[in-house]
């Protein structure tokens, strides 16, 4: 297991007296696509945000290639540069064009030169089908387009693992497809992904590991076939039944 990209051990997070996550553990190996499912408020997003330190875990360990991320004095910015994140609300930089959004991290954080950064940005924008829009500003794009740019921005950093925090939840149904297509394609290319999602079909088809969180606890985890085909826990069955009934 020493070759895992990311290992989370007994992660807990409290906001005040409210316990959001309790003893959550997870191992992510290279090329894994892990989906985290569960109802709203179950702690899925908080878990993901703890992983790249947007939230500080209350206790537990996060280990990235053997380095303890949660250790005091850890260099969070250079760690985050290797762990991409795609947000529910896109969070594209509103003061920059599409192209600049994909360049700024490369030039300022990775200190790459303009030419290389531009080639990299164009490659990924091409891949998500947003290359024609390099001169547009985020406010001029649709939600699905914004999210595809956000994915290209994350990819341009060449992260070792990509976190998705409900990437399609803010999109209308027509646009969900275009973003899921991109994610499908990425998963197929061997990208290591950790996806918090309400898209059960996507989780079932794409992930090789599924974690069902309930009230801040890992209620059940296993392969996609196990969780969706033959869930063991009553709570998991209830949750999935409600989704399938939709």
């Amino acid at each position, binding site marked *: 297991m020493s070759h895992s990209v990311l290992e989370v051990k007994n992660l807990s997070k409290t906001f005040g007296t409210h316990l959001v996550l309790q003893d959550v553990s997870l191992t992510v190996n290279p090329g894994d696509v892990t989906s985290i499912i569960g109802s709203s408020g179950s702690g899925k997003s908080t878990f993901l945000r703890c992983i*790249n330190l*947007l939230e500080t875990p209350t206790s537990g360990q996060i280990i990235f290639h053997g380095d303890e991320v949660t250790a*005091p004095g850890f260099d969070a*910015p*250079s*760690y*985050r*540069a*290797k762990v*991409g*994140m795609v*947000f529910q*609300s*896109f*969070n*594209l*930089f*509103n*003061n920059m*064009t599409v*192209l*600049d959004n994909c360049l*700024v*991290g490369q030039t*300022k*954080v*990775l200190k790459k030169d*303009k030419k290389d950064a*531009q080639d990299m940005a*164009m490659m990924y924008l*091409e891949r998500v089908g947003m*290359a*024609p*829009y*390099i*001169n*547009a*500003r985020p406010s*001029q794009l649709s939600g699905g387009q914004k999210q595809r740019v*956000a994915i290209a*921005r*994350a990819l341009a*950093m060449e992260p070792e693992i990509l976190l998705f925090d409900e990437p399609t939840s803010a999109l209308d149904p027509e646009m969900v497809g275009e973003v899921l297509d991109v994610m499908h394609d990425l998963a197929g290319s061997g990208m290591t992904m950790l996806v918090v999602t309400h898209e059960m079909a996507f989780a079932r088809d794409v992930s090789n590991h599924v974690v069902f969180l309930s009230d801040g606890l890992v209620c059940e985890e296993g392969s996609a076939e196990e969780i969706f085909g033959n869930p063991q826990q009553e709570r998991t069955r209830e949750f999935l039944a409600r989704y399938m009934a939709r």
Partner: protein
Amino acid sequence: MKFINDILKIITEYGSSYLTGAGNTLLLALIGTVIGCIIGFAVGTVQATPLPEKGGKRVLMRIVRGILRGYVEIFRGTPMIVQAVFIHYGMFYMGLKPAIWFSGILVVSINTGAYMAETVRGGIMSIDQGQFEGAKAIGMTHNQTMINVILPQALRNIIPQIGNNFIINVKDTAVMSIIAFMDLFSIHKSVVGSNYLYFPSAVLTMAIYLTMTLVSSVLLRWWEDKMAGDANYDIVNTKDTLAQTSGLYRAKKKEAKR
């Protein structure tokens, strides 16, 4: 008829003095606002920086913030006319011999800076938290986030307030006559001191101030529109290499301008 004759008399006799005064007023307001904005950005940015979680740095930041807070409260809470006397004659008292322009710019700058600090802090707070998180998530440090993402957006949001401050400064630099700064109002005072044409000179002075502020308003609006960026964008057809390079060419031109 007498009124028009008086006005014409003032213009023919002292016209160039009024223009010089107006020029000094504008220059003082402009320099004071620019330096004030720089002070405001520095102070406001420090005030909006989250405190480090641990030890020595946190204490240091607290002290720095306390001092800056004191600066803001003192210069926002006292009249600029009193600040002018306090600083200008204060320097003389301490054996310095500041030039009038130096004192004038100093007073207007630090007074504007105190207001701008709060404006900038408000501008930073108005930026969606997602912008900070987006920047953090690609590995930017706090300073990189501020410089590349937050402050450019905050600047755009506070342009109307910068304009406000500039227009206030055009008018309020009139109090600098107290330290014998030769602004427009000082000219008015010295002219009426010799010919007692209080009302005609006041009308002329009012008209010049109003012209300056109205022109400023128009220019500020133009700047605001310019900062809003293009309303349209070109679709770049990536199958067509010529179109693609022209798209990149525009992006490169923008970079070169920076």
